[in-house]
């Protein structure tokens, strides 16, 4: 395996590997950009992703000091977004520790690789609780068990426990960590996942095994479960059927993908050469 020198594992890349080693290979090893559609209803998909991104941005702006009423004025033409925003403000931030950090990234090392987590919000109190808030805009609540097992839950808590000492003011006992998924499109329903030293140990073993397996892999086979191909844009590369349906798509995953629909502004300042 040859990952680029600036590569870091994330919940997204590990999730891709867990879903399909070939997808991991194409996306992260061969860095192949591939414009095929994820779902048939491309514009609906795009609008939904953009709205989710806008929502995350609003909360970030607010936590950096832009007053809520000013932000609310920009939502006049979007009832759904305004509803999410109001729920996030009224229910999402309730009872959280004082110190709040929006869009914070933490990095740690694991099995000779870098592991990175980008948090929507970290709320902590030195010596007290350390809460991870992850905003979700999907309307359907997933099963608690599935969410507990989700790569995001595993990676986010583990990285905070192993790399959060500086922002916490000392090592964070895993028992002080909690991860809350807040479903703003489901009335602000909150699914909380506390942490523990035993869970951290189990997570470390799981993550180390995964990273080790990727490191040692000589081949990256196609997934045997073809249902995983439905929303994968490499379908035509792998000869694996047609695009899936928008209504079956799980936006919880796409919400964490920073690059989804990102425009590249690095080209901006360059004049002919």
């Amino acid at each position, binding site marked *: 395996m040859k990952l680029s020198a*600036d590569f870091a594992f994330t919940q997204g890349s590990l999730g891709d590997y867990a879903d399909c080693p070939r997808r991991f290979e194409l996306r992260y090893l061969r860095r192949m950009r591939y*414009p*095929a559609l994820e779902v048939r209803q491309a514009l609906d998909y795009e609008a939904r992703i953009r709205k989710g991104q806008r929502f995350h941005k609003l909360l970030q702006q607010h936590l950096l000091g*832009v007053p809520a009423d000013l932000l609310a004025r920009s939502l006049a033409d979007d009832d759904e977004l305004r509803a999410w925003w109001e729920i996030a403000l009224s229910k999402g931030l309730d009872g959280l520790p004082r110190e709040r950090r929006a869009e914070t990234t933490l990095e740690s090392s694991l099995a000779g690789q*870098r592991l990175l987590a980008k948090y929507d919000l970290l709320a902590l109190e030195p010596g007290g609780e350390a809460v991870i808030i992850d905003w979700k805009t999907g309307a359907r609540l997933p099963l608690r068990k599935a969410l507990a097992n989700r790569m995001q839950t595993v990676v986010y808590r583990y990285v905070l426990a192993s790399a959060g000492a500086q922002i916490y003011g000392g090592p964070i006992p895993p028992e002080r960590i909690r991860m809350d998924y807040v479903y703003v499109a489901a009335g602000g329903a909150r699914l909380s996942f506390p942490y523990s030293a035993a869970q951290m140990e189990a997570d470390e073993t799981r993550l180390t095994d995964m990273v080790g397996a990727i490191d040692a892999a000589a081949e990256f086979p196609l997934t045997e479960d073809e249902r995983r191909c439905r929303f994968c844009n490499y379908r035509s590369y792998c000869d694996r059927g047609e695009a899936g349906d928008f209504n079956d798509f799980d936006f919880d995953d796409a919400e964490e993908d920073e690059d989804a629909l990102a425009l*590249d*502004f690095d080209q901006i*300042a360059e*004049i002919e050469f």
Partner: protein
Amino acid sequence: MLVPNSSFSAEQAAGVFAAADEKVWLEGPAGSGKTSVGVARVLRLLEFGVPAESILIFLPQRSLAQPYLEALRAPSGYHGGQVAIHTLGSLSLRMVETFWFLIAEEAGFKHPQDLPTFLSLEMAQYMMSRVIEPLLDQRDYFHSVRIERARLYSQIVDNMNKAALVGFPISEIGARLKSALAAGPEQAHIFDDAQACAQAFREHCLARNLLDFSLYVEVFKQQIMGLPQARAYLRSRCRHLIVDNVEEDNPASHRFLAHLLETCQSALIICDRDAGFRRFLGADPQNARRLRRFCDVSLELKDSVVMGAEMQALSNALAAQLGAAAEAQQADPRLAIISEAHRYHPQMVDWVADQVSRLIAEEGVAPEQIALLAPFLSDALRFGLAEALDKRGIAARSHRPSRALRDEPAARALLALARIAHPHWRLAPPGMDIAFALMTAIDGLDLVRAALLTEMLYRGGKLHPFADIQSAAMQDRITFELGQRYDALYTWIQRYIDAKQTLALDIFFRRLFGEVLSRVGFGFHRDVDAGNISMNLVDSARGFRWSLEFMSRYDEPVDLGLEYVKMVDRGLIANFYLRDWLADSDGAALIAPAYTFLLSNRAVDYQFWLNIGSDGWSRRLYQPLTHPHVLSLQWPAGAVWTDDDERELDRRTLRSLLLALTRRCRRAVYLGYSELSESGYEGRGLLLETLQAALRRLPREEAHV
């Protein structure tokens, strides 16, 4: 330990291990190990326990971040937050976007409650064209200027960027250019027109929440820096500064850094001596030096860790020939040059390919340690070199950031097929474009058969089914299998036309790609380059759609697909994407314009300087509407630009270019010369003159050039 003590010279160590509250100025030539100090300094700060999120690495260009990114991602790395890496552009954009609702009204935007739309360079040029084209026709602007319209727009954009970066209002563009350059009323008119266009464009942007680079830098300077929330954010995020290649940055960056330096806890400012080759992008090395006064300690690195003794001697000899102080030579510079004169250009290309092949096969040089450089890289030269290398089994990669995206085969094919699929645009492509598109789209179809298919099945702007070929012999010649593939493509397009449900153009490209072109039997199947180029085209078309959709709040809606294709036709879409530029370089020789190579800031063992007779090595582009020197901070008000200034500029440009190149070359430079250039003219530019004169000054042996 992240930073081993033993691997640095005493001067380097003084920079790396400076106290966590010290501000250090570090200067030296390219290749003296300055960036290594910068990288180690960041790791050292982290080792000190400095929070990663309080460190800012500030660079003139994103591509220079790679060594920092790689060090920070090293497996033995630290645990904690993330070090921020920014350019002035990226930081301004992020800050303006975040604090938009607090500053939009004060900054003069007409719809402060609406979101902003940030314009990429191509979008800025497009918007410029929308504003200016009516003026060109109605008011006869620029009637005496004979350049492509795309270049006209880019120079007006450039003037506005210079105003923001240097720090003067756009209302002064015309006056500044006129006082230095206007030889008569005709030229004065041109600058007045350029001024009027810049102002019209700015008003257009303010009325629609559009922000091009110049405007968001301006808003960052004027509004964001005065905002308490933004200042608090910057104070917490920029307590420790690492600034690399400060000489390649512009006065606006320098002012911002001066502001940070007053309050930050520690800093390392790295300045490359004798550089500043990004002047055409606003670099101001003289102004950069003023930041030295904020530093507690000044360090200097003198010795190159890149160049061998002969290369060092060559570097000195060339610089001395162009006016730098001569240094005592420790070695014979001729040993760092290999050259051969040719009569015709293709002979030179073959010689270059032979030499590359020999280096790899006989001397074991890795292909990525070879850079083939020319002042400009025409398609013919790029193609000729790539083909000559390919024949010898050598992989090459080339990057020319300002090459139009429409010139890439995959993009060309997608665009031609889009025209057929949208007959209501009335932009049916010529037969040659269709033949080319079919050849690219269908695996196994060569140009001869593609041309035959086109001749028989492309009529009146429409494709027809394979069965329409009456002659069995002709069907056999095409082959049944290729005919089937053609039919699959034809059927897909025909169904799309019949459905009469026009898709957004980027979605059309994605569907065509995913449902046909990337399937087995088609040209894009498992082709990484085709995938990347198609994705760049999709990104570009989508960015276009988003900007214009948003603007339909303020303006009459337009047919977005048609408008996009017209924009491509006008040459406004380039392939400026950094991610392609940074694509893996292992195993391939680089073919690039010299400045593109420099902007990636890496050294190689061997360089080939091609077309050394060309005056493009020293002469700036013909830019009748702008002037990087007159619009700089260093230009004295009221001074007139003379022919002597131009000649002196040529010399200085060439000197800094040659210093920059030689300092990024470890072993030798091959000089590619042909008496007749690519276009058949004899060229005797300043580079050739300089090489000959420098070598003539050496004792005894004959000059090689």
